[in-house]
């Protein structure tokens, strides 16, 4: 009967489709064009203004539009961008950048040091209302300017001449060059930015210095970029046009990918990973991603207030191998530390992370009992997350592990994202809550800073003067090795208190059509379109 109905439904629809379908526009089974790239890009960018974007979707587009002083190679390593060369003073406080002679804006104007000065000042100016100003803090006077105590002209950047830029730092920052790949440090074309203050990042107005320029922006649909003919390397760009589509739902994105509308997805739905591994294995790109998925404990309220042993018991009772194998299943790495492993900073996992499961459980039970709980007096706790299938599965699994291993009664509660964030920030009724953090650049402070007592991001209420002091000492430290040691010490101290329960380190997961070439995995998951090309071969059909 069901089949009969379906066939009828299909038949009823056939004539309507036949009439409206243009035979040329049907889904291709090979690349439709070797010069056009269609990228899925999660949510709609809030803005393409380099100082007003919020998060990955806008950065992806901005990295195609603009070129910062330093750029990312395809493998994520650093390479010269708008600056052809630079010198760093011995004390690590002074950076002098020599801009390329052939740097041009998309209208043909030369890219000058003054463009960078203008943009960086605008980035820290509180009047700009930038949500990312904080990232520029390493530059001299930046935090005082953002707080409104100094004028933006006092920022430690100056144009020595048309093509030479001098940046002074507040403290030496080993990650400063990498920071210069962030859109917040990109230059701005002064005449257009001044002509339309606060509204220049629109088609017809936006002038950019990167490989591509803005051609079209249909809000909630797509952003279309075309090749910038004035870009210094324009002749070597293979992709002429790139589309970024706003598709929040990974399941919809997958369908559009399979239908051939997209060459590239931003993510893949959790529950289809198995299917993807079986059917689209060659297209599936999985790589470590600089991010941590964790649950936080509210240290300002019972039951976790003043209970480090209980928090450690809870963290030990969770089997991360099972969670990453069966709940996420996308190649995520189990996490025992808060900072993901990086080249300069191997993960600072506590010792129990390497124990056998039996040892972990025995210790968890001991700590649980020590905290005054047991079969007669089980801990009742609320586990809160923002509504999403993935988070729900994770919360259910963790609650089950707590129940099974310790006898904890956990109630899982879900809330719409903004309601959840509001509750987390207020700290008035959360107990344990989901959290996630993605690094902007490869340095542990990116992660450790958010647990500093005064950090607005610190939703756990963790406040340890020793931890804060170690971070401060690390910030003032010029020797990179010493600095890393201090940071590791800080992290170990913090993990001892377990204000957060790390679960796994993220991986980036996406599908890329086999004809798109030039892909290389990298930790920051940055993939500028200029590194890609499309081949039109016959062997792509499987």
């Amino acid at each position, binding site marked *: 009967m069901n089949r009969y109905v379906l066939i009828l439904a299909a038949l009823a629809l056939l004539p309507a489709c036949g009439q409206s379908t243009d035979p040329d*526009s049907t889904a291709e089974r090979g690349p439709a064009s070797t010069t056009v790239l269609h990228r899925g890009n999660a949510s709609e960018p809030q803005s393409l203004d380099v100082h007003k974007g919020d998060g990955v979707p806008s950065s992806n587009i901005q990295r195609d539009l603009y070129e910062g002083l330093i750029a990312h190679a395809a493998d994520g390593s650093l390479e010269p961008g708008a600056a052809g060369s630079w010198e760093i003073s011995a004390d690590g406080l002074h950076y002098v950048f020599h801009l390329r002679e052939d740097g041009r804006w998309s209208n043909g104007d030369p890219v000058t040091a003054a463009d960078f000065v203008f943009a960086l000042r605008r980035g820290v100016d509180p009047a700009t209302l930038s949500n990312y100003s904080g990232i520029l803090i390493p530059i001299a006077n930046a935090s005082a300017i953002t707080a409104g105590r100094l004028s933006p002209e006092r920022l430690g950047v100056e144009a020595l001449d048309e093509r030479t830029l001098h940046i002074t730092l507040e403290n030496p920052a080993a990650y400063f060059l990498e920071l210069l790949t962030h859109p917040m440090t990109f230059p701005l074309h002064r005449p257009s930015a001044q002509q339309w203050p606060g509204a220049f990042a629109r088609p017809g107005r936006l002038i950019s210095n990167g490989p591509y320029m803005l051609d079209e922006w249909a809000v909630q*649909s797509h952003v279309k970029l075309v090749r910038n003919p004035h870009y210094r390397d324009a002749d070597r760009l293979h992709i002429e046009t790139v589309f970024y589509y706003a598709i929040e739902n990974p399941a919809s994105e997958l369908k559009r990918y399979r239908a051939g509308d997209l060459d590239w997805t931003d993510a893949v739905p959790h529950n289809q990973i198995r299917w993807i591994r079986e059917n689209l294995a060659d297209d599936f790109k999985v790589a470590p991603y600089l991010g941590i998925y964790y649950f936080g404990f509210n240290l300002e309220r019972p039951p976790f207030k003043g209970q480090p042993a209980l928090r450690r018991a809870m963290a030990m009772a969770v089997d991360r191998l099972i969670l990453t194998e069966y709940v996420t299943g996308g190649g995520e790495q189990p996490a025992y530390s808060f900072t993901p492993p990086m080249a300069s900073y191997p993960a600072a996992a506590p010792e129990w992370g390497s124990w056998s499961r039996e040892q972990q459980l025995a210790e968890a039970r001991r700590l649980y009992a020590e905290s005054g709980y047991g079969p007669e007096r089980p801990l009742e706790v609320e586990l809160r997350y923002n509504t999403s299938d993935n988070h729900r599965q994770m919360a259910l699994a963790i609650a089950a592990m707590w129940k099974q291993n310790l006898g904890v009664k956990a109630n899982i509660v879900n809330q719409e994202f903004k309601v959840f964030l509001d509750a987390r920030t207020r700290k008035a009724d959360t107990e344990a809550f989901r959290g996630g953090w993605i690094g902007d650049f490869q340095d542990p402070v990116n992660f450790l800073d958010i647990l500093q007592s005064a950090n*607005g991001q610190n939703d756990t209420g963790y406040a340890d003067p020793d931890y804060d002091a170690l971070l401060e000492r690390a910030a003032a430290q010029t020797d990179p090795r010493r600095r890393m040691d201090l940071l590791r010490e800080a992290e170990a101290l913090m993990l001892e208190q377990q204000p957060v329960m790390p679960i796994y380190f993220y991986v980036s997961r996406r599908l890329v059509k086999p004809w798109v070439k030039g892909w290389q995995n990298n930790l920051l998951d940055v993939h500028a379109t200029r590194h890609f090309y499309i081949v039109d071969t016959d062997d792509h059909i499987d």
Partner: protein
Amino acid sequence: MLKFALKRFLGAWPTLLIMIAIAFFMIRVAPGGPFDSERKLPPEIEARMLQAYHLDEPLYQQFGRYLAGLLKGDFGPSFQYKEYSVSELVMAGFPVSLRLGGLAMLLALVVGVSAGTIAALRQNTRTDYAVMAVSMTGISIPNFVMAPLLILFFAVFLGWLPAGGLGDGSAANLVLPVISLALPQIAYISRLTRGSMIEVLHSNFIRTARAKGLPERLVILRHAIKPALLPVVSYLGPATAAIITGSVVIEQIFGVPGLGRFFVQGALNRDYTLVLGVVIFYGVLIIVFNFFVDMIYALLDPRVKY
């Protein structure tokens, strides 16, 4: 008549004001604000941001400011899409929704009325059962289930049509959203038409028409179809409302940048002004429609007093 029109016109304003007030205060009740995100703003910037958008003022003052803006035709800036004003977004989304909804309505009417008529003429035959079975399915399967099935079948398996988005605005991109949107209406209209057509076919004047020897084709087209369509015509109002609300879901599923998608994303992002803009826009649209319908009724039906 003029007096009636004027009365109606004046009566529309309080309705509009109440609607704006309810929408304005309702969305503020939702916890969280437009500038909350996983990455928090530095407190100084947040304070300035609230100030710049007047969100630091008492609510009644914000409401007054908003109304004053509306009188000048200013829907305010979007809190989420910082480069755009709400008017720009609404004006960008409306043509898309109009095209989608208009085509869906047209499709629903043409297919629904034809299918219903055919079913009525072949009452209790296989054709009739088939049409009614399909329409029953159409009514009972909600469009958020139907749409992904259609995408899977026609876009993913057959590869005939795009799976979503607006592309370059070509017709192919509209086919699936229009069908998904029209399907429940086709089902409803065909059942409505069938029922009323069967009733009309049994009435005396049809028997007379047949008795005087008119060919069946003329009996149907000249005599039966008009009275049979009356219930369909009165269903147009609810159908329009259903298509507007249906488009909220369909636009989201297909990623079509219409008003419905702006509305949903606006609500999730706490983009207060954008949500209000869409609500007011649709509210005004419906009030205007109702006004015209009242006028037309008054003209057509002498029993309506004014």
